[in-house]
């Protein structure tokens, strides 16, 4: 009787175990599925931005139309207008086109096409008075057509390109004059109103400056605060209150730090608006508790016997801490810092408040220049109407995720490497 009862109980226990395992596997599977969908979605939308579509156009570098000669200086070339020869080349695509359609022909290429010709000419001076095939950026709308993002069978008045443009485009495609290239300018260009020209350089550099300022401020402050609180501060009411508040600070919504930055850094100290300097300062406030907490945890994890060993040798308190305790706590601290920074890298809300949301079409050269950052760039582009910005938005997210993965892997690497060394 007793044995049968025991048997049944045992069976029940095993079943419970099996069920628990199943739930666990199920939830992991769901999490991975969601992640996969997210990544697939972003990549399928964004990968197009890493390619650009160009048109091969035969251009006649006519000396008279350019107003240049073989001895023209670089300055003269830069000041010359290449618009006319560009227009000639474009009109030559459909010589019989009525006057009305000519404007549509000119719109086939990007507004930067003239600059691209100029650059090409600067690198190849000897082509004056010759015809040459130059590769020019296609307009954003046709670029999207080429990438298959624009349906072509909807009525003309609901498209951003005309039937006439489409006809010319199809001719060019059949003549292999439309080519797809790796879009380096997405990484080297600043933001632009024209989707085919817009790039992430300004926000990439802005993010770099912002993180740099953030690291410069929060790392030393965080480490010193943590070391002092953990190793030197007397344990009393005041330090207890500080400790509780550091933990609270880590839970404060980031937008509050943005308000603080707006109120203090901008309106009181008159620091320059929209700059990585202020952005970095605001993010440093946010990152500080995220450095202090792991650093203190790492210090706490150092066995007290190490401290006693050093003290018993006659090392002073500072020597004991700096020589023997802090080096042991460094891996944990560093990985905490990197994770804090990667959170700062993805932060948007506080930066919107201090004006880092402005349209910046130059790459900043110092942390004092107005600039955007990657997540804000995502926000800005996601609000734009042009179809071309959709893929740019996703592509920027890809870049952001790429940096986050690198930073977090580095944090994990540090932790593993140094933990192995001494245990």
């Amino acid at each position, binding site marked *: 009787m007793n044995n049968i009862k025991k048997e049944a109980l045992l069976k029940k226990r095993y079943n419970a175990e099996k069920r628990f395992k199943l739930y666990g596997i199920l939830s992991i599977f769901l999490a991975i599925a969601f992640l996969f969908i997210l990544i697939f979605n972003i990549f399928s939308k964004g990968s197009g931005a890493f390619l650009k579509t160009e048109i091969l156009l035969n251009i006649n570098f006519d000396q008279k139309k350019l107003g240049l000669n073989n001895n023209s200086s670089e300055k003269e070339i830069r000041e010359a207008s290449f618009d006319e020869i560009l227009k000639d080349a474009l009109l030559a695509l459909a010589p019989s086109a009525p006057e009305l359609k000519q404007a549509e022909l000119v719109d086939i290429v990007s507004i930067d096409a003239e600059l691209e010709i100029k650059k090409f000419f600067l690198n190849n001076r000897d082509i004056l008075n010759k015809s040459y095939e130059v590769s020019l950026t296609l307009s954003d709308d046709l670029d999207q057509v080429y990438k298959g993002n624009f349906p072509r069978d909807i009525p003309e008045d609901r498209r951003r390109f005309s039937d006439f443009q489409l006809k010319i485009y199809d001719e060019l495609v059949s003549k292999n004059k439309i080519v797809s290239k790796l879009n380096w300018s997405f990484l080297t260009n600043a933001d632009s109103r024209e989707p085919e020209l817009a790039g992430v350089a300004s926000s990439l550099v802005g993010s770099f400056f912002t993180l740099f300022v953030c690291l410069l401020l929060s790392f030393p402050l965080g480490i010193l605060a943590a070391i002092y609180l953990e190793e030197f501060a*007397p*344990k009393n009411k005041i330090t207890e209150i500080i400790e509780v508040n550091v933990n609270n600070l880590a839970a404060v919504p980031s937008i509050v730090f943005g308000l603080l930055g707006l109120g203090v850094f901008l309106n009181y100290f008159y620091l320059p608006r929209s700059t990585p300097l202020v952005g970095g300062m605001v993010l440093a406030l946010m990152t500080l508790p995220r450095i202090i907490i792991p650093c203190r945890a790492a210090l706490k994890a150092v*066995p007290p*016997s*190490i*401290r*006693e*060993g*050093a*003290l*018993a*040798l*006659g*090392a*002073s308190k500072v*020597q004991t801490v700096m*020589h*023997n305790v802090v*080096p*042991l706590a460094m891996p944990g601290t560093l990985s905490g810092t990197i994770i804090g920074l990667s959170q700062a890298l993805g932060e948007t809300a506080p930066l919107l408040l201090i004006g880092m949301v402005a349209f910046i079409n130059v790459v900043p050269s110092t942390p004092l220049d107005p600039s955007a950052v990657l997540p804000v760039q995502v926000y800005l582009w996601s609000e734009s109407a042009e179809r071309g910005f959709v893929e740019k938005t996703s592509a920027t997210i890809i870049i952001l995720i790429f940096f986050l993965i690198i930073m977090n892997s580095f944090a994990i690497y540090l932790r593993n490497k140094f933990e192995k*060394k*001494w*245990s």
Partner: protein
Amino acid sequence: MNNDKIKISTRNLNVYYGAKQALFNINLDLMEKKVTALIGPSGCGKSTFIRCLNRMNDVIDICKVDGSIKVDGSEINEKNVDVNKIRERIGMVFQKPNPFPKSIYDNIAYGPRIHGLAESQNVLDEIVENSLKKSALWEEVKDRLNQPGTSLSGGQQQRLCIARAISINPEVILMDEPCSALDPIATAKIEELIDELKKSYTIVIVTHSMSQAARVSQNTGFFHLGKLMEFNLTEKIFKNPDNKMTQDYITGRFG
């Protein structure tokens, strides 16, 4: 005991952890270049006592040490005495080996470095070698000085800690149950070492092993519930102690 020189003497030493008193009126003289063993049941205050001698109890916030501790006749239990200087003169070896997470070499070199005992790399090398030789570890580690100290066995680690303690050439070495984590062979090595070290250092050793106290020490003190019950020549304590409790303890009837 007559013609021995007193190295450390405590008078009316009372120690409190918060409101709780851990030591009561300890009066004890430690002889120079002798081994003094401290025995007694767990919790009787042996560790507390030897931690007073190099002011390690300062580290514990709630610990208050009252009374006089004289080293070579000068008082050390005063606020204005530099504890780092005292600890340079009075080294300590702990119950659990606690090598620094550095190389074997750096473990030994750490003390001389912070006290500026070596003007050159050669002198430092020499100190490291001598310390390791004195602690009978040199032969085992001379080819692997760059490996982490934590890679050694428990017994080797404890000898490393002894080498570390003698690297700054202290006058006194305090050992708190240095063999409690070791096997009999490692224990025998350390006991031999203590015998050797007493030629140049004053040694205080806390131990739970009666036989160890009998083997290595010249004087023995018996603690009970925070009081020093008996202090005398080791031979006398183990052959015919004055105190009944001492007798009971060393014969294993309590404790």
